[in-house]
Every structure is written in C-alpha cells, then in structure tokens.
C-alpha cells in the first residue's frame, strides 16, 4: 500500500503542476480522482479514497482557500460515487 500511496502522490503532484501551468482550464486532478473511482473494481476502495485525499491535498496547497476543503469535498464525492457504483452499477458480463 505504501508503494501505491507514493505513486499516487507523484501522480497527483505531476497533475497539479500541469493544471497550474499548461492546462489551467482543465481540472485534471478532479478528473483523475473521478476516473480512479470509476475503475474502483480494479484499484480497490482504499486506493480510490487515498487518491481523493492526496488529490484534495494538492488542490488545497495550490489554491488560496482554507486547507482541507478540497480534501473534504473530494473524499465526500468519492465516497458517494463508491456507494452508487457498488450498489447500482454492475459490470457487463459477456457470454461465450
């Protein structure tokens, strides 16, 4: 898990640098968190929540609001997404 967290930190640091310089009209970090959540079956619930936490932390650092706001928002969004996806979305089953 530690290796995964380190990878996520690197990924989100890279994304936030891109968002604040090259692609400042694209919310890259938020998109990444949502994508990770959508593929939760592959990455797992914990990874999805950790990615929301790390992504939110970097958004907080590189914005001028209160530290922790983005962490809260992204974690709440991730949690809700996980609930919806786990309860109401089934992966397609292909018959051979």
């Amino acid at each position, binding site marked *: 898990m530690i290796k995964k967290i380190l990878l996520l930190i690197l990924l989100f640091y890279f994304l936030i640098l891109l968002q*604040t310089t*090259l692609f400042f009209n694209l919310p890259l970090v938020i998109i990444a968190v949502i994508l990770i959540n959508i593929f939760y079956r592959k990455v797992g619930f914990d990874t999805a929540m950790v990615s929301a936490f790390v992504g939110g932390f970097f958004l907080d*650092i590189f914005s001028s609001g209160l530290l*922790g706001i983005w962490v809260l928002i992204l974690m709440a969004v991730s949690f809700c997404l996980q609930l919806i996806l786990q309860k109401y979305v089934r992966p397609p089953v292909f018959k051979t």
Partner: protein
Amino acid sequence: MPKRKLIIFAVLILLIFSLNIFQQQVRGFFYSFSHPIQKKLWGAGDNIADFFLGIFKKDALLIENRELRTENQKLLLELSELETLKEENAELRKALDIGLPEDFQLALARVIARDVSQDLILIDRGSADGLREDMAIITEEKVLLGRIIEVNENSAKVSLISHQDSSFDVEVLGKDAEGLIVGQGGQNIQLDFVARDKVIEEDDVVISSSLGGLYPRGLLVGLIKEVQKDDVEPFQQAEVTPFFRLRQLKSVFIILK
C-alpha cells in the same frame, strides 16, 4: 468501510485542517521546490496552447488573420502620423526644457503558475525582494493586472483585477466619467456605478483612478465592450474587455513606490 480506516481518514483530515495555523509556511514550502518546474512548464505553455488553437479554431484564425492585416495597415498609417507628432513633441520639450520623471519604481518578476482558484497568479518574487501585500502589478505596456494578496519568501500571490473580490475606482478616458470596476471571475470585469448622464461608448478606454488609493492613476484597464443603460436605474453599467491576456503573460512589473 471498517471503523479503523474511517478513524485514520478522520484524523488525517483533522491534521490537514490544523495545518491552517501555518498555512503560509506550508504553502511556501511546496511553492519553493515547485518553482523551477512550474516556471519551465509555464514557458512551454504557449507552444502547446498555439498547437491546440491551430487545430480547433482554424476558421476563426483565418478571419482573425484577415482582420489583423487590415488593422495593421491602419496602424502603420497612424504610426507615420505619430512619428511626425513625436518629432514635434521632442522639439517642444527641448524648447521648454522639461523631462518626464520616471513614473514608478518597478521590480521585474516572472509568472510561474496560475492558482487553482480562478483569477490568481503566482510570481517568482517574494518578501526577500521587498514585496509587500497590496502592491500593484502591471505589465510592460502599463496594463493593470492586479495586486499582491499574499507574500511568501520567494513567491507572491497576485489577485487579478478580474477576481470576484476585486473592485477599484476607474475613469473612462476622455469622457469625464468615473465608475467602479468589479471583478466577475473567469477573467471578466464589469464597469459599474457610472452616472447615467455620462456618455460612454463601445471601445472607450478605461484607466485606473487614484480615488480609492489602491492603484496609481493612468494604468490601462480595458476596453468597453457593451454598455447597459436602463431608464429606471440611477447608474449605467458596461462590460469591459481587460487588456491583459493571461496566457501571454511571461513577466510582470511590481510597483514598489
């Protein structure tokens, strides 16, 4: 979600909220080692933006190109007239023995990033270079950008005039009309509180006024785009296109005095 994990996340969130006590230091720490990378990426931004613009807006670019050619010809004509005026002016100055003093004491800074929140930018000079909060930021063409709202040791955060919390006194050049520029967010600004009896038109130039004491007088702010006048309202409003182009910003000047 197991109770243990929930507690860990709750503790981490609390820990981050407690970092607000040292907010400036924490952000300063991250900014300090992100500087060099951000500076390089910001510099590369133009090429990438131009590349995508070329793909998606080919037709619009062709029209713009045609318009620019026409404008260029007009400007060349004006330039030749101005050259004559310049010579005349120089001769008169010589005759009267006056010299314009330096307008402001300036310091140069580079834009390194844009804040995640709208209408805030980061520059590579900080308290170590003598920067303080509320100092005005302009471009080399004397276009007003905004003011410093946060100073770290080697960087500072600038709130652009289009920031939603920004408002300051302005006047419309050559029209004897005064008003207030209010930031709308998303690099948009609006001219407000202009007396109804004043005549303002499209393409009028808006400049800063020293009335509020926030900015020096005479800095370029923007061009009036559309005037909204209502018989019932005591004031008229106007949409203003700011002169600055965020993507093209590389270096800016801080007015020290």
